[in-house]
């Protein structure tokens, strides 16, 4: 059931969903003085029919970005545009918006109310939006689309009577039942067994092929991005530090952080670059390049040699634009690129 080279959308088509200069902050733990800048200036476009993967280590702001795209958190700056119109945060408009954009969460067991049957869980969206048509029919269709066949068998089951993979299919069915245009999937398979993962990913690809669905897939698994995404954006400490097509970024990473991420994969050729230091803290984002404190290139002296070490420490990098092209937010990579040209 694998589909090869699905219709990769042309770079020119207008983005369906885009974030511009998005900032999200949370009140810090140490009083209001230092707020955690969970998302700190992100531009990201998702075009119709495109699958974009957002990767990065834990706590870098992936989930927050995803939530802010759905209007579940309000950005402190910047805006989200859907189909050319900026998001309106009035509850009526949000409701209408959320009919067209759906969220699938990491933990399928958690995303299902243990007291609701599969039927109820899938029909929930229909009920919220006062679906006029045949509810039962719609639920059946969505369940079969999600690969739960025959759907009637599952109607009266409770989440605990399902396997993890089945649960995630129910969640996806619940998203599909409203026939959305975009799905934001936050680590959709992270909690699933390796053997089951592939099936769910294949389902996403199939839906894109059948329904032209676009998707933003949040993950920390680079292999997953390789499996299904057209484009990948690497996030570090609230910013996208490298973006481009999957082939570009994953086979020829430019940013030292992306390189490090790839190098520690068990399969990776060459010595793994294990970053030292604690995981970054969004309430204390370093000045200059936000990665410089852990940067192996800077530590190894290569940046020095390239003459960008000072820039790394003191000079802020611009926000990468959300469009399709390969870009990297790194003084060293840029200097290399310019010298090689």
């Amino acid at each position, binding site marked *: 059931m*694998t*589909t*090869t*080279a*699905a219709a990769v959308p042309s770079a020119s088509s207008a983005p369906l969903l885009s974030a511009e200069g998005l900032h999200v902050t949370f009140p810090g733990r140490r009083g209001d003085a230092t707020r955690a800048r969970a998302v700190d200036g992100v531009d990201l476009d998702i075009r119709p029919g495109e699958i974009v993967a957002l990767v990065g*280590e*834990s706590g870098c702001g992936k989930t927050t970005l995803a939530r802010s795209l759905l209007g579940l958190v309000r950005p402190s700056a910047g805006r989200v545009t859907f189909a050319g119109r900026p998001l309106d945060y009035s509850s009526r408009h949000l409701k209408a918006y959320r009919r067209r954009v759906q969220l699938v969460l990491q933990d399928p067991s958690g995303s299902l109310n243990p007291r609701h049957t599969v039927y109820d869980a899938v029909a929930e969206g229909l009920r919220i939006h006062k679906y006029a048509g045949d509810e039962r029919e719609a639920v059946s269709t969505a369940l079969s689309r999600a690969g739960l066949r025959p759907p009637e068998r599952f109607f009266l089951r409770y989440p605990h009577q399902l*396997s*993890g*993979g*089945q649960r995630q299919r129910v969640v996806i069915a619940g998203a599909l039942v409203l026939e959305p245009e975009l799905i934001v999937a936050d680590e959709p398979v992270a909690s699933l*067994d*390796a*053997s*089951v*993962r*592939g*099936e*769910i*990913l*294949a389902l996403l*690809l199939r839906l894109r092929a059948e329904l032209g669905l676009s998707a933003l897939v949040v993950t*920390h698994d*680079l*292999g*997953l991005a*390789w*499996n*299904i995404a057209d484009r990948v954006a690497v996030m570090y400490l609230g910013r996208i530090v490298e973006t481009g097509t*999957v082939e570009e970024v*994953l*086979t020829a990473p430019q940013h030292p952080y992306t390189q*490090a*991420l*790839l190098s*520690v*994969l*068990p*399969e*990776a050729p060459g010595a*793994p670059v*294990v*970053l030292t230091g*604690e*995981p970054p803290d969004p309430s204390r984002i370093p000045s200059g390049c936000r990665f410089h404190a852990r940067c192996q290139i800077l530590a190894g002296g290569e940046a020095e040699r390239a003459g960008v070490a000072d820039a790394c420490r003191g000079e802020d990098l611009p926000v990468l634009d959300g469009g399709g092209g390969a870009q990297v937010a790194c003084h060293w990579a840029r200097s290399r690129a310019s010298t090689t040209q």
Partner: protein
Amino acid sequence: MTYAGGVAAVRGVNLALSAGQKLGIAGESGCGKSTLALALLRLLPSGTRVTGEILLDGEDVLTMKWGRVRAVRWAGASIVFQGAMHSLNAVHRVGDQIAEPILLHRKATPAGARKKTGELLEHVGLPAARASAYPHELSGGQRQRVMIAMALACDPRLIIADEPTTALDVMIQAQILRLIQQLVSEQELGLIMISHDLAVLSDTCDRLAVMYAGRVVEEGPARQVYEDAQHPYGQALSAAFPRIGDAGSRFAPRGLPGDPPDPSALPSGCAFHPRCAVALESCATEDQVLRAAATPDRRAACVHVGPVPVAEEARSTP
């Protein structure tokens, strides 16, 4: 091993490990990996039925007196548990927790234990001063290191690491794996590493056993099992880890259709047959045992590999 509720979590597993060897056990969630690990030190909850033999340096753990079991625990074999955050006692300082088995097994005086604790912490890359920290003051990776230091406290001959890196970030995962590898090779310890990440195991271990529904379905040298699995389940599992740059897996996620088995209601015959692409009619009724496959040091439990069951002669003293 059958839990009190009648769940047969592990069904007839034969494995052997010699000193200094690293064995990886892989398998999906609920296939009995942790149960197996706990059984080795008789840590399963009371009411669990365990049959067979667990020989630790030739001694059967299952028939030991409780006093002897307590003596063997930690001194003979120690465990690094799955979730470090829950495996450490939140109200004791980590140093005390590390020193506790040392004192208990009378390996040192209190002063000696304190010194040893400091050494152990430095060994796993933490400053000795951290001994006075409470678990909540440490990050997940640091706590995992403390667990490893604790496992080394009584110089055991065997360390069992149950999913030491799950729930950790990619970077930290890499750090911990390197640490374990390094310690094991330095100290000539036996290591049993449990994980569901086949790729990680193949990278770390000498040998690899793949479990399915409480059974070992495939066993052999790590790289071979990963790259060229004999059992259909092993194949599916290794395919589930895409290799970046491999064009074949681009837009082609691979998985295993069907659902993981429920250990309390296993299918008849080969437990894997409902999900098996190459299942035969007979698979539904005939159980499959491990048999030699491909090379002599590899075994698999599938009709499609060689016909000779080898399980019985494979037992040796670890």
